[in-house]
């Protein structure tokens, strides 16, 4: 029988937060799971943020190729349909559609609002559910309301009343209540939808073979209870960008708090994954299931004066975990090189069609890219737009033979040239530098970008 496929994306998870990559981390469930699995040491995400990375995961293409790399008109809610067009119009068939064509029962439950059903990621899924801080399926209604009234702040209540939209009023009040309720009940670490997703899976039974795609948001900011309400209500999740732009500096104690909270979230994610895996074992489907545990990007914890993700292609942001369990806990011989999320689609289909034990993921050379020049800002942050845009740029990086070359392709300047993570110079390694540049030049394709000069 064809193996079931479970793809778990732990949003914003960096490698050192979990035990298979860092002995000091306390994630026993993931560690047990990794003993049955293949642990890839050099996985790179094709983009430093959620939307392009997930599109790469499902299309097998880099952002340059699938073009789902920007939220086109700054306003998320009105432009989701454009992403659906892009995803649909792609030359590549989505992983979910490929699996559905092969007779799979395709189910997804996601917590990241960027992956809400309107985004187009529901293509190819029989069932696609988005969880929210406030609970199941409230967000869909909320987006309609947001389109009309803007952000869900208390200030919109009188306007709704004046318009006489009673049904909206009820929905908004319920949303506020649920969020408040969730806030009250949540301790530290914060629960951001993961437990609702787990409840849903534990109470469902899936016809086999199934494809289950999960996106867990626990590792993503906000990390402190005090940030929670503000971020949820205002969608004010850009404090990190303000920090990077120098508009607002985090105090040392705040940074410490965030770091501590981040690793605590890993413990919570671990327990959710542990319960899911026990459930699979008890239901007798574990053995015949391919389970992929990975992330769409990591998180910079101010190692290079930057907190968060997106914008830059630092190692903390694009080096991600990749753990794959095959049916019957088969092991594969992992080759030297790097793994890109863009290869995961073909690998999964290879498992479905051929039962392979060959490492078809690892490549000599992989890339990562960022393309945003503007981002969506809430009205209260609009005045910082220029400053924030200053940090944004098209960036490209390439990994090969232990070397990494990262460039700001707006200015044609070098941001990082490293060997096994340590900075080196082009004059020390001219051949390697030029080789990486050559890879970037071909990877650039039609994009009108500047690259540094050869040495």
């Amino acid at each position, binding site marked *: 029988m064809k193996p079931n496929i479970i793809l778990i994306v732990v949003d914003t998870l960096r490698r050192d937060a979990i035990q298979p990559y860092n002995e000091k981390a306390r994630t026993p469930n993931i560690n047990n799971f990794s003993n049955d699995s293949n642990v890839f040491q050099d996985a790179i995400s094709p983009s430093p943020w959620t939307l392009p990375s997930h599109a790469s995961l499902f299309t097998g293409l*880099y952002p*340059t*190729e699938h*073009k789902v790399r920007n939220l086109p008109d700054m306003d998320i809610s009105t432009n989701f349909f454009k992403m659906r067009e892009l995803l649909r119009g792609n*030359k*590549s068939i989505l992983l979910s559609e490929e699996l559905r064509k092969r007779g799979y029962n395709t189910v997804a439950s996601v917590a990241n609002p960027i992956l809400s059903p309107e985004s187009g990621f529901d293509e190819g899924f029989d069932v696609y559910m988005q969880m929210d801080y406030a609970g199941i399926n409230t967000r869909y209604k909320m987006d309609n309301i947001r389109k009309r009234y803007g952000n869900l702040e208390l200030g919109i209540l009188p306007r709704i009343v004046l318009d006489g939209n009673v049904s909206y009023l009820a929905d908004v009040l319920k949303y506020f209540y649920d969020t408040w309720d969730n806030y009250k009940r949540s301790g530290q670490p914060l629960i951001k939808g993961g437990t609702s997703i787990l409840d849903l899976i534990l109470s469902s039974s899936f016809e086999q073979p199934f494809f289950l795609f999960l996106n867990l948001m626990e590792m993503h900011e906000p990390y402190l209870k005090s940030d929670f309400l503000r971020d949820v209500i205002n969608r004010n999740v850009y404090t990190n960008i303000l920090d990077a732009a120098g508009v607002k500096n985090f105090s040392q104690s705040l940074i410490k708090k965030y770091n501590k909270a981040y690793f605590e979230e890993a413990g919570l994610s671990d327990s959710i994954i542990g319960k899911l895996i026990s459930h699979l074992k008890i239901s007798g489907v574990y053995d015949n299931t391919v389970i992929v545990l990975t992330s769409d990007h990591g998180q910079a914890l101010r190692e290079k004066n930057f907190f968060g993700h997106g914008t830059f292609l630092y190692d903390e942001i694009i080096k991600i975990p990749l753990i794959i369990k095959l049916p019957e806990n088969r092991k594969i011989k992992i080759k030297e090189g790097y793994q890109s999320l863009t290869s995961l689609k073909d690998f999964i289909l290879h498992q479905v069609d051929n039962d392979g034990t060959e490492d078809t993921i690892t*490549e*000599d*050379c992989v890339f990562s890219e960022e393309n945003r020049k503007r981002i969506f800002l809430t009205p209260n942050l609009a005045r910082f737009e220029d400053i924030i845009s200053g940090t944004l740029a098209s960036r490209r990086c390439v990994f090969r033979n232990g070397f990494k070359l990262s460039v700001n392709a707006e200015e044609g300047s070098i941001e990082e040239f490293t060997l096994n993570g340590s900075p080196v110079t082009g004059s020390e390694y001219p051949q390697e530098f030029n080789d990486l540049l*050559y890879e970037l*030049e*071909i*990877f*650039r*394709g*039609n*994009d*009108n970008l500047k690259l540094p000069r050869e040495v």
Partner: protein
Amino acid sequence: MLYFKTCQSLINIVKFIRHELLKKNMDKRVENLSLDAKEKIAYSVIEDVFNRFSRPVVVWSAGKDSTVVLHLVKKYVENTGVNMPPALFLDHGQHYDETFSMLDSVSKDWGFRVVVAKNDDFINKVRDGKVMVSDLNTENMKELEKIGLNGDTIQYNLDSETGNHLLKTVPMKNAIRKYRFDALFVGVRWDENLARSSEVFLSKRNDPEHFRVHPILTFTEKDVWAYIFKYKLPIHPLYYKGYRSIDGKNDSKPISDKPAWEQDLENTSERAGRSQDKEGIMERLRTLGYM
């Protein structure tokens, strides 16, 4: 076996007659059309590809046709300011020295990268002009399985199906996969070979998925030379020595002592000096992914 061979040669004769009959009609498709108009057609095809694909590449052998395509692409690039795409060169290990010096000089003068695709495993294992099948790596073995070869050795030449497939098509496909090229500009023309006479401007290929782009389908051999002289393009030195079509040292021969453009282009065969065509294997090569 004999029966099989007889059938095959009969089929080839039928194909040849069909080609000769069709050729007249095929040529009529672009009869009386000026070179200017054909250039515009080529330019539109190139423009369309640059608008819709992210990573194009020009397959370039330093021969006349692919150099014309490269120049047309260069013109588009200069007019629009987009990046000049790289060229893809298939190195089968039997190229003339003149070919390599032309690669160097033109790529430097015109400012583009040359990506070299080569089947190192195969070429490194050649001994006395042949390769033991058992010496090849698994990838090459799999490819041999695909084309259904049995036997212990393979001749190191380009005029056989195996040689052409392993030395040109396989490394080309690997390069497409590795560099993620989505559109390959190729200098195929309608008038040069039966198997290419029904080609279309943009043709989709699988494994790996990409498009073949043929901007100069409408050009005749005469048009190609006219274009080369019109824009003063560099000319591969062997064309001066009577070669009409150039590839490997062992499978291309001069067919006259006159320079290529001074020969009777309309009444003699352009690829007479090439062994691929004599064997009538072009169609089969193309189903395996060749140009």
